[in-house]
Structure formats: structure tokens, C-alpha cells
């Protein structure tokens, strides 16, 4: 179906965005109300088959001779009921009805010589999965009633209920989007939504290195991990502020150095008089094509205390002693500035490529008009080319700022977060994300890691929502169609 949607409502400013919240809940409530009314109406109006479908799924379809479809619904219901009642165990932890109880308690058996400890982590995970199964069941349950009711209406209108074959064939046409999206959605739910929900929940528990899963029980602790950021003497309260401010400083400089550098480089390569444009461009594409673990680890060694760069600088008399550039730098700012400079080497080619692409698309009539008006090259550069690039790349500037807040490779591979701050895991070049990685992967402090991840998400999400909703792309999505 190619029905054009109306342009998205124009929203401006942050207060509008905030004001949309109550409206959202009101709409949600209206939606729920509508569903309930429809549910009651269908039950009252439906045939006997539809009525029975409210208890035995698929009965209505069988009643209308859609045998296969009915059986699928029925076996789905039976399978779901069996899982909920029997609660099969995976790795000694039940999934199904019992998992709901376990989700609340997170395990009661502390373990002794006779009984193994309950695995709180798996209980939490299986609880989330069980809630997921319940939502899938509810969805299928309502679709079963709808399908049966639709068959009722078809029969009343003197038509045949749709055959299974036609239902399947429709997946390639009218409901093509379902066929196309289902595999992707399954992948996203299992590998993105489920894990994300799970990790959000972990932020509200005391699952840390003192409570390893399957050995010591852990429990819900409410918001206390979040409160620890603002009070207390732990790592998270002491280091959160410094890491956050360095993250912002890094994101700001990393974004703008690359942006300005890339545009300048593109303008340089694309100058009319410059020959072999493709060769120059290829030199810089090399950096993009080279896997970052190679180029960054090479840089790290190149800049090491007795590496070739230091020996070159010492031998040529520019400095007297080797400079400790990165992890063992004497001042955190030496390492930070070095990292930002190396990041130029990494990132500028990307902006350069992008800008080169855009330069080819600058509407030619703009230049022609300028030429007729007697503008010289410099004027058309400053008044046409540059403003055009800036205008077109604003969305990129925003996404790249957010990308830099969550960028991992550059810091982790160059300095590993060091120079270290004695007594804490977060070094002076650690970003929120590298800190989070260390805390969870190396130190098993899962709950604090989750708290940091949620804070990172809040920061990036706020920035994105504000800018994205104001961006032209969102408002005028259908403008070019």
C-alpha cells in the first residue's frame, strides 16, 4: 500500500517535546479503552465459534473450515500452557510459570553442601524471557479472535472465509511487510531488546563481583546504585564527574577537529588545479580501510617511549628526552591531547570522503548564477560552497557528536584508559563507555556498569531526540517522494 502519510507534525523546541508526554499517556489510555470496547463488541457479536475461541484458540477457525490455521492456533495455546505449567528447566533454572516467582525473589536457595545455589542471574533472564513469551501469547490470542471474527463477517457477507493458501500468498503482497520484517524483528528482539531490558534491570540489583551468578544470591536493591553516583565514596561517585566531563570534552574536540579538518582537506583535493585527485583521495581512504585495531595498535607502538617517533624527535634535536605520549604519560593532558590528534588521523579521511561526495552534488546553477553576477572564485567558495556543505552536513555533525560519546576503539586501543588514577578503575582518559566495558568485562561489576550504560543512554537519547525531532529529515520525510 502506498498511501502517503501526512507530514509529521512540526515540533519546535524542548518545551513542546516535554508537553508531548501527557498527550502521549492520554493517547495510550484512549487506545487501551478502544481495544477493550472492540474486545467486548466482538465477543457479543461473534458467532459461537468466535465465542469459544476466547477459551480454546483456533476453534472459530476450525468452525469456519480453516482447519490448518485453527490447529496452529490451538497447538500454540497448548504449547504455551504446557511451558507455563511444567516450567521446563534449562541449566537447572525453570522457564515458565515458576520463572515469574523467581523473577520477583531472584532465588531463595543460598546453597549448602546438599543443594546448589540458585542462579539469580539466570532467574532474572528467564523471568524477562517468560514475560516476553506472555506478550507473544497475548498478541497471538487477540489475533486468533480477530481472525475468527473476520471469518464470521466474511460468511455473513456471503463470502468464503479466506483459505490458508490465500493467507500465505498474501504474505507476498498485501502483507509483504510482515514477511520482510519478521526475521529482522526476531533478530532485534532476541539480540537487542531482550539483552537491553535485562541489563537495565541489572542496574536495580546488587549483581557485582561480590555476588557471582550461581555462587552467591543477589537481590533487588531499587535505585540505590543510582543514588551512589551522587553520594557515597565508591568508585562511581568519585569518578563519574571527571569521566563524564572528559567524555564531553573528547566528543566536542573529536567531532569538530574531524569535521573542520575533513572539509578543508576535501576543498584542497577538489581544487580545480589539483591533478590526480583520485590518487590523493586513495591515500586517505587507506586509513578507513585499515582495520582500526591495526592502525591504532601501530600508533600506540610508534609513539612508545623508545619507539621511532621519539628517537626521530630526539635525534633531530627537537626535544631532549623522549616524551611519554600515551598510557604512561606524566600528565593526563598529554595523553588526552595525543589521543585527540591521533583521532584526527583516523577520522578526517571519513569527513573528507563525505564532503567530496557532497561537493559533486552542489547544484551547478548556483555557480552559474554567481558567475553571471561577477563573483570571483573566492567569493563563490565562501558564499556558495561552504554554506552549502555546512547546511547539508548538519545532521552528520549531530550524529558524529553522539557517535564520539560512545566511541570505544580509539581510547581503548591507544591508552586503555590510562594514565591510571591510583585506587580507581577509571583512568584519566577513560570515557563512559570504556569505563563501563572495564567494569563489566574485566571487573564483573555488572550493576554499576549498567548504571553507567543507562546514564550514557540518557545523555545520547536526550541529545538525539531534541535535534532529530527538529531536523528537516524527520519533518519532511516524504518531501522528495
Amino acid at each position: 500500500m502506498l498511501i502517503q502519510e501526512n507530514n509529521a507534525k512540526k515540533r519546535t523546541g524542548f518545551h513542546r517535546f516535554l508537553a508531548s508526554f501527557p498527550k502521549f499517556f492520554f493517547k495510550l489510555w484512549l487506545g487501551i479503552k478502544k481495544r477493550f470496547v472492540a474486545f467486548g463488541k466482538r465477543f457479543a457479536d461473534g458467532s459461537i465459534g468466535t465465542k469459544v475461541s476466547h477459551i480454546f484458540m483456533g476453534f472459530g477457525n476450525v468452525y469456519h473450515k480453516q482447519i490448518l490455521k485453527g490447529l496452529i492456533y490451538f497447538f500454540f495455546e497448548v504449547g504455551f500452557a504446557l511451558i507455563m505449567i511444567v516450567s521446563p528447566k534449562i541449566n537447572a533454572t525453570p522457564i515458565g510459570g515458576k520463572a515469574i516467582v523467581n523473577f520477583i525473589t531472584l532465588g531463595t536457595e543460598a546453597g549448602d553442601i546438599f543443594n546448589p545455589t540458585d542462579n539469580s542471574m539466570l532467574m532474572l533472564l528467564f523471568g524477562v524471557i517468560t514475560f516476553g513469551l506472555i506478550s507473544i501469547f497475548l498478541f497471538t490470542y487477540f489475533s486468533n479472535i480477530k481472525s475468527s471474527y473476520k471469518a464470521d463477517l466474511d460468511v455473513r457477507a456471503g463470502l468464503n472465509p479466506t483459505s490458508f493458501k490465500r493467507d500465505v500468498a498474501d504474505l507476498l503482497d498485501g502483507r509483504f511487510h510482515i514477511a520482510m520484517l519478521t526475521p529482522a524483528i526476531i533478530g532485534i528482539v532476541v539480540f537487542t531488546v531482550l539483552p537491553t531490558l535485562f541489563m537495565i534491570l541489572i542496574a536495580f540489583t546488587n549483581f557485582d563481583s561480590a555476588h557471582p551468578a550461581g555462587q552467591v544470591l543477589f537481590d533487588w536493591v531499587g535505585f540505590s546504585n543510582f543514588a551512589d553516583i551522587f553520594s557515597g565514596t565508591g568508585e562511581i561517585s568519585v569518578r563519574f564527574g571527571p569521566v563524564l566531563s572528559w567524555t564531553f570534552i573528547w566528543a566536542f574536540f573529536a567531532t569538530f577537529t574531524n569535521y573542520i579538518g575533513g572539509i578543508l582537506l576535501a576543498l584542497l583535493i577538489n581544487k580545480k588545479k589539483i591533478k590526480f585527485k583520485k590518487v590523493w583521495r586513495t591515500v586517505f581512504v587507506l586509513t578507513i580501510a585499515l582495520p582500526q585495531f591495526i592502525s591504532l595498535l601501530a600508533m600506540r607502538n610508534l609513539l612508545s617511549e623508545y619507539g621511532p617517533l621519539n628517537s626521530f624527535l630526539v635525534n633531530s634535536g627537537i626535544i631532549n628526552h623522549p616524551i611519554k605520549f600515551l598510557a604512561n604519560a606524566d600528565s593526563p593532558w598529554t595523553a588526552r591531547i595525543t589521543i585527540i590528534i591521533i583521532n584526527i588521523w583516523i577520522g578526517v579521511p571519513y569527513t573528507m570522503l563525505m564532503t567530496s561526495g557532497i561537493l559533486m552534488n552542489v547544484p551547478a546553477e548556483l555557480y552559474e548564477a554567481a558567475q553571471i553576477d561577477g563573483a570571483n572564485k573566492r567569493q563563490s567558495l565562501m558564499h556558495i560552497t561552504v554554506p552549502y556543505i555546512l547546511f547539508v552536513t548538519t545532521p552528520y555533525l549531530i550524529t558524529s557528536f553522539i557517535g564520539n560519546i560512545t566511541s570505544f576503539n580509539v581510547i581503548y586501543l591507544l591508552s586503555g584508559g590510562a594514565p591510571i588514577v591510583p585506587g580507581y578503575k577509571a583512568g584519566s582518559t577513560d570515557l563512559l563507555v570504556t569505563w563501563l566495558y572495564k567494569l563489566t568485562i574485566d571487573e564483573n561489576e555488572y550493576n554499576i556498569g549498567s548504571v553507567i550504560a543507562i546514564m550514557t543512554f540518557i545523555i545520547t537519547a536526550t541529545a538525539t531526540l531534541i535535534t532529530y525531532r527538529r531536523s528537516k529529515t524527520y519533518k519532511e520525510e516524504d518531501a522528495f517522494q
Partner: protein
Amino acid sequence: MIKPMDGTKVLTKYKSYKASERASTIVSYAVLVILTLVWLYPILWILLNSIRTEYNDQNQLIGIVVSHYFPYQIGFDNFIKLFTETQFPRWFLNTLFVSSISFILATLLTLSVAYVMSKLRFKLRKKFLNIAIILGLFPGFMSMIAIYYILKALNLTQTLFALILVYSAGAGLGFYVAKGFFDIIPNSLIESARLDGATNAKVFSKIILPISKPIIIYTALLSFTAPWMDFIFARVILGETNTQLHTVAVGLYYMMYGERVDSNVFTIFTAGCVCVAIPIVTLFLAMQKYYIEGVTAGAVKG
């Protein structure tokens, strides 16, 4: 008001203009040459290290980082050691296996989501778009730990199959660039085919896919090279000890920064880097045109 100019004045002005233009061209070339040197300095250093073949008094290969940039002696001893004394060939095949399968799956998923989001209109479309953006904002490692435990509960950790799943399953969320590409295809093309009775599936396979070569190549290129570049996910899922399952990135990283660090392996490490870089860089350069198109489209679309 136009002032009349005499001929010589115009000529000198023209000459000085010419001269300044030539000067600016020379400066531009000079800057480009310097930048090229800066950009190639580390890359060339990797290449030089991989062929550095210097032995110490005990007749041991000197594999550490040394202070001289150009090697005193060259040879292929590092490559021989890489292929005989480390598990690099195994890592290479592992990575090739993972990326060959995951790039097909990831490309299919990305293109199907992108097309549906761009050209079909259905009830929950806008919601799906918004949810996709929000999910994309969660730091990837946040879900990584959970993925690790989910795979562990399924007894799938430390298998290459798990890695394939992880690389391809999330692909559905990265549809934005491809959606931007489909957005530009005029709707009239699709509508006329629909009027002729073509199903949506036919339209996609017979009309859209044949004209989408640039975006297919761009998506395939990125998803094929991802397993060669990523070491974060691979490291968590495969672990350090299970060396025969490593991908090139993980294997080479642990060679340099593992539990048992041997600083004498740097030159062998660089030999490994060269073996990885040559195919990947060649691929990128060959597909450069499509890559630039994708990058530009992605940036402009935001």
C-alpha cells in the same frame, strides 16, 4: 560606474593574478604532500616492520619495537613464523567463515527492513522507526554481557556460530543509509508496476533489487569487513583461552596484549596485520565508488 582601463594595466593585473594562482597551487601541492607523508608514516611503518629481519647475538629474531624506522635487514622470516608458530592461518579461516555467512544474512536483513520502511505504508511503521532509533542509542556493550549469558544459557558461547548470530541479528537496526537510498527511487515506478498487477514481492525482487546495485554493494562491503575489524564482541564471546576459535582481530590483539605478553612478537604481529590488511584494503579500494556514495547518502540523510 565603469572606469575605462588602459591595456597594460589589465595585462599586469592578469599576470599578477596568474602568479598568485600558481603560488596557491604550489602551496596546495606542498600541503598535500606533507599530509600524505603524515598519513602514510604509520602505515609504511607496519609494512617495514613486517619484513624486518634482524637477529641478535644469540641468533634470535629481534621482534620488539625498535627506535629505527627503516629496517637494517629485510626478509620474510616474520611471515614464516606467523604461519608456522602461531595459529594465524586458523584465525584467518575462522574470520573468513564468519564474515562470509554473516554478510549474506546481514545484507538481506538490512535491505528488507530498509525497503519496507521506505516504500510500504502500514500501521506501526512510524512506531518501528522511532523504536529503532531509540534502541540504536543504547551502548552496544551494554547488551553484550546479556548476549553472552543468553548464548551461554543456550550453550552456544565459544562457537563461531554465536558470532555469526551476533553480527547478523542486529543488522535490521542499521537500515538508515539503505532507506535513504530507496527513498530517492520514485514511487511512480512502483505504482505503475502495481497497476499492472505485480505483487509487492515481485516489485521488490524484479524492479527494486536490479536498480539497487550501489546500496547492495555498500551494505555487503560493510557487513563483510565488520568481522575483520571488530574485536570487542568477538573478544567477549570467544574468550581468551580458546585460541583455535579466535578471529584475526582477537588473535592478533591477544598476541600483543594477552595475559602472557611476549614483547618480542611485535614484528610477527605486524606481519599478521599486513596479511589482514591486504585483502580488506584491496576490497575497499575496489569498491571505493560505492563506499563514497553510501557515506555521502548516510551523512546527508542523517
